[in-house]
């Protein structure tokens, strides 16, 4: 059966060939077209990231040095004489003006030299490298746990909104969102190490390399996250199920559950991933608390120490790493969004 195209009618012709205006669909050309919007996004993000990172480090430096509370004082302790403090200050360049000090640090950092910790004397870079894996492991573990919990529960809620299961899960989520991480962590500590004695160890081993050791801290992070994600997923899934394409799917004879999992979830998942990405900055903050409570040898704990000792180089180094991490994650999230959503993957959508 041949298509009958009325002559001289541009809409009909366009519809017939289905090409984008002005382009013959050659494979390589299309691929190039498809990638460029994404590259532009990536490029723009990177460009923005640089001043952001710089701003972050500058801000930290200023804030940390703005008021009294000297590193030298902290190092030498309460009993130091003013003379000793002064000697140490000069030795650590602490008497130079703020911006000069910042410049020293910045210049060195640009060359990859993050300086030495004022407290321990060790190179900042190596301290960071040593502590970073634990924190990264913890964060990833927590994220995975939160997804494992939230996706099925979110689906269950959306399956029958207003039903018993939905209400129960929503109530739990409300509790999960309202509980402070400190309370949750201590609760988990109490429940698992106190009552279910040998299920999970109370204190993580010093390095936290063991997956088992990380489970409780990860859980204390994952549960509030999961509560948040479940609420988001539920709302988004319900909205997706009210879209026209869901009706089309139902009209094919598919069950509601199938439409939920095979159609709605696809669309909601993209949104969920972006929410996760943009939430990551907050997650880092809570990680610090978790590391403190569970005594993990991670970057968060190190940060607390650095603040206490007014160990500026170390502090800057850690802050830089954290901020860089956040920026990186935002970037990856943007990229993922572009990759996963076919409308964006192929550049501007045809109307």
């Amino acid at each position, binding site marked *: 059966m041949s298509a009958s195209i009325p002559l001289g009618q541009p809409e009909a012709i366009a519809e017939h060939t289905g090409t984008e205006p002005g382009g013959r669909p050659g494979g390589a050309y299309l691929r190039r077209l498809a990638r460029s919007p994404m590259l532009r996004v990536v490029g723009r993000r990177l460009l*923005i990231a640089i*001043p*952001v990172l710089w*701003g*972050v480090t500058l*801000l*930290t430096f200023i*804030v*940390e*040095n*703005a*008021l009294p*509370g000297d590193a030298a004082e902290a190092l030498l302790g309460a009993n130091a004489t003013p003379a000793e403090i002064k000697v140490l200050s000069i030795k650590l360049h602490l008497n130079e003006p703020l911006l000069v000090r910042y410049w020293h640090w910045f210049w060195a950092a640009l060359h990859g030299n993050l300086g030495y910790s004022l407290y321990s004397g060790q190179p900042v870079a190596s301290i960071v490298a040593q502590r970073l894996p634990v924190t990264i492991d913890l964060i990833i573990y927590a994220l995975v746990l939160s997804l494992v919990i939230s996706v099925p529960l979110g689906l269950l809620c959306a399956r029958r909104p*207003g039903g018993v299961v939905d209400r129960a899960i929503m109530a739990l989520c*409300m*509790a999960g*969102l*309202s*509980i*402070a*991480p*400190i*309370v949750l962590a*201590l*609760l988990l*500590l*109490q429940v698992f190490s106190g009552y279910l004695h040998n299920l999970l160890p109370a204190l993580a081993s010093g390095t936290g390399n063991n997956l088992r050791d990380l489970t409780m801290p990860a859980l204390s992070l994952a549960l509030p996250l999961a509560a948040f994600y479940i609420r988001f997923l539920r709302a988004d899934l319900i*909205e997706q199920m*009210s*879209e*026209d394409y*869901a*009706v089309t799917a*139902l009209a094919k004879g598919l069950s509601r559950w199938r439409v939920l999992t095979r159609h709605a979830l696809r669309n909601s998942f993209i949104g969920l991933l972006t929410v996760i990405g943009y939430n990551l*900055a*907050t997650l*880092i*903050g*809570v990680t*610090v*608390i978790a590391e*403190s*409570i569970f005594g993990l040898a991670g970057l968060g704990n190190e*940060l*607390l120490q650095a*603040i*206490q000792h007014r160990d500026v180089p170390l*502090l800057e180094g850690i*802050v830089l790493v*954290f*901020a860089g991490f*956040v*920026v990186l994650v*935002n970037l990856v999230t943007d990229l993922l969004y572009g990759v996963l959503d076919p409308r964006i993957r192929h550049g501007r959508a045809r109307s």
Partner: protein
Amino acid sequence: MAGPVASLVLGLPDAAGGSPQPQPQSRGRGLLRTLEITIPGALLLVLLFFCFIWPLVYPVPSPTYGSVLNANLPIWSPGHIFGTTNVGYDNMARILYGGRTTFEVAAGVQGIGLVVGGLLGVIAGYAGRIVESVLMRVLDILIAFPALVLILVIADSLGQSEMHVIWALCAFSIPATARVARAGTLRLRDQPFVVAARLSGVKAWRIISGHIVPNLMPQLLTFSLLGTGIVIIIESGLDFLGYGIPDPAPSWGGMIAYGQTVMSVSLSPLIVPSLFLFGTVVCLNLLGDGLRGRWGVR
């Protein structure tokens, strides 16, 4: 949004045939809704009363004065309902006064966030182009910074005091509110009634104050309300870590930290402040959610 076709499958009658009702159930639902708002609201009011007004009328013992002879009394002791600390301070008083700080900090942070952040956001959204870019970049820096880290740094270098805690937490609330305000302003700016006002030459600040702000208020208020819970949680974290309210002064986070140290001996010093913290945040969240539903804000 549900299209007309999909609305049918969901059970919303035809547009012309009757008012579309999302809940197929009867009046019980409306009652539940109201309860969801009134009960948490009432509980919060009761708590506020006890924290702020009660000590004025009833001789509540000082939270920072006590005799060591009275130390470590357990819960339900006569005269000290929640027991005492290891130096004899009355826990009930500490809860009440700690609550005061909690609410003061929350109100301060959210208030400043609402005003300053809201203003920044509206300006950014309305002015557009350069102003918006600059403002947004600055705010982006603040957002990129893990909030807690920034707060820790600020709180530590500023020293421990309630006001400083408020400043530190504003680093979180101002950018967050600004974002919401900006998004809302952008959306409102292209609404026909605003465009009409702009075209007829109405001055910018008038449009903002007369059109944009009133329409933005429900959204901003519910956002602030919902954010209050988070602020309280973060503040308790600060106190817990030792960077917030200085020591003899009571704070719930601080009490929880103390509770942790005696966890193996007695649980009540941990449980009592935890319950109050949890209860307050739950009520705030429920209230915020309920109001959001009632006012139809997204």
